[in-house]
């Protein structure tokens, strides 16, 4: 069973931008916007 339920708090994970600088995901929604996270597969 998934631990991620609708209306649950979204996990915050730190990723990298294109300059290899750390970016917490939460920074995206703290700006007051909704966020659509599109998880890509391999880029072939």
């Amino acid at each position, binding site marked *: 069973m*998934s*631990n*991620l*339920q*609708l*209306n*649950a*708090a*979204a*996990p915050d*994970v*730190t*990723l*990298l*931008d*294109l300059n*290899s600088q750390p*970016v917490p*995901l*939460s920074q*995206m*929604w*703290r*700006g*007051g*916007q*909704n*966020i*659509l*996270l*599109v*998880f*890509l*597969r*391999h*880029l*072939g």
Partner: protein
Amino acid sequence: MAQLCQHLPEFEVLNTRIVLISFGRPDQARVWLEETCWLAPVEINAPFTLLLDPERRAYRAYELEYSLLRSWGLKVWRRYAQLLFKGRMWRGIQGDSGQLGGDIIVDSTGRIRLAFRSHDPTDRPDVQSLLAALR
């Protein structure tokens, strides 16, 4: 992804930023985005935020699925053939082809509003259902 590109203004009206997450290298991601959304390089950062997740932490945190078997089923080969027929270039497998994707909507309070995890690479929510979840 190409469908998302065509509906960017609607996402903007709904106060929604599109954040792409890839476990590929930055140069691969840039090329892929240019080809997929027909964006000039200078425009890439405008409509999207592209973040890299080489260790796939976010993929695990958001419980994206993994299956080599489903990643290379008949439906997937058919889809690749269609894309090649339309002129997309095949660049080989860049990264772990068993990792599946998905689409997650997080609202402005940090709550999950929609979670769609792909069962196979052709399995993605249609744009209208994403827009409906945001309304």
